[in-house]
């Protein structure tokens, strides 16, 4: 039986360089030249930028980068998001109900799917396909919220987006809600960094979040450079922080000092 072809388009794939290939999207497969990728074997999907171009990255054992014509990018992304390997539940969701603790005025309840993969979870609707990686998940709980004038039990997910703590809500039958809560809790526990923080480490983490630089943190925490470096190393090693810049502290040699002397006499 031949499958229905949804789309056929010339695209580029990336393998150290761009390769021209035809993409054929069918009910169950993505076909690129001789390569056939069953949709149900795609483990993850992301929008990524490669060499300045907006691309789709799919994960199936290895990672495959697709550069589509701009007018087809979103259409293909949406199709894959709805059909990849995941457990999908029909729900109502309110994505980004609060951002940084502030209620989002633009957020609204949508009818769609809550989809869970090994890498994270998705809010899927006709207009919204939002991926939340599991490492961005902060907490999962159920709570009573006012939905359409009634107190309803919802799943409250806090996750991080662009350094903000965001809260999203999911509404579905209670049995599904409890199952989702348990499943996400287990997934969260499995992925969370295995570290117990001391009071000092918690404070340093908070200071980093607040946007303070190394010197300010040294000052507030009352620590020497070496002590703070040790704490930084531990936070980086435990996966709670990453190195973005390494600064240099230097002092002048005698040549440098005499140069400054000359500069001051100009």
């Amino acid at each position, binding site marked *: 039986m031949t499958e229905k072809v949804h789309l056929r388009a010339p695209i580029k794939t990336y393998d150290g360089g761009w390769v021209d290939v035809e993409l054929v999207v069918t009910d169950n497969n993505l076909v690129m030249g001789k390569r056939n990728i069953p949709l149900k074997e795609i483990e993850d999907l992301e929008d990524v930028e490669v060499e300045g171009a907006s691309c789709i990255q799919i994960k199936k054992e290895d990672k495959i980068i697709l550069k589509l014509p701009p007018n087809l990018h979103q259409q293909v992304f949406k199709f894959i998001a709805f059909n990849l390997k995941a457990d999908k539940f029909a729900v109502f969701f309110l994505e980004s109900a*609060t951002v*940084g*603790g502030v209620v989002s005025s633009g957020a609204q309840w949508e009818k769609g799917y809550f989809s869970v993969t090994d890498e994270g979870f998705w809010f899927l609707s006709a207009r919204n396909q939002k991926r939340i990686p599991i490492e961005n998940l902060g907490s999962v709980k159920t709570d009573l919220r006012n939905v359409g004038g009634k107190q309803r039990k919802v799943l409250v997910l806090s996750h991080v987006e662009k*350094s903000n703590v965001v809260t999203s809500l999911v509404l579905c039958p209670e049995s599904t809600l409890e199952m989702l809560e348990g499943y996400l809790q287990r997934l969260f526990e499995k992925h969370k960094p295995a570290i117990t923080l001391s009071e000092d480490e918690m*404070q340093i983490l908070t*200071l980093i*979040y*607040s*946007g303070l630089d190394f010197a300010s943190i040294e000052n*507030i925490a009352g620590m020497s450079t070496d002590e703070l470096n040790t704490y930084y190393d531990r936070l980086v090693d435990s996966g709670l922080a990453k190195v973005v810049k390494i600064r240099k502290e230097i002092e002048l040699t005698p040549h440098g000092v005499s140069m400054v002397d000359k500069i001051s006499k100009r």
Partner: protein
Amino acid sequence: MSKVLIVDDTAFMRKLLKNILFGAGFDIAGEAENGKQAVEMYKGLKPDVVTMDVVMPEMTGIDALKQIKTHDKDAKVVMCTAIGQENIVKTAIKLGARGYIIKPFQAPKVIEEIKKVIGE
């Protein structure tokens, strides 16, 4: 230069706010570690703005806000709340708080809110 009175029961949070605000060019009028102290210090120091924590011993931030507003109806008080305390924010705004900042603090947001409240 605008003067800020920082009210929080944890020394760490006071230090953090002090660093953020001082770095942005504000003067620190003083620091109080509970609501009662905040009311007394407000009367004495007459700061341009107060950053007020909500949960504190002796007197909560909400009660201190009420007393400060009774003393000076034009007082500019910014509440410091944690994520999930939206109802407390609503109450504080009704009582005359001019704004709020959310813990954990992010320096740019703190500065933006304080400047907005002061009218800079």
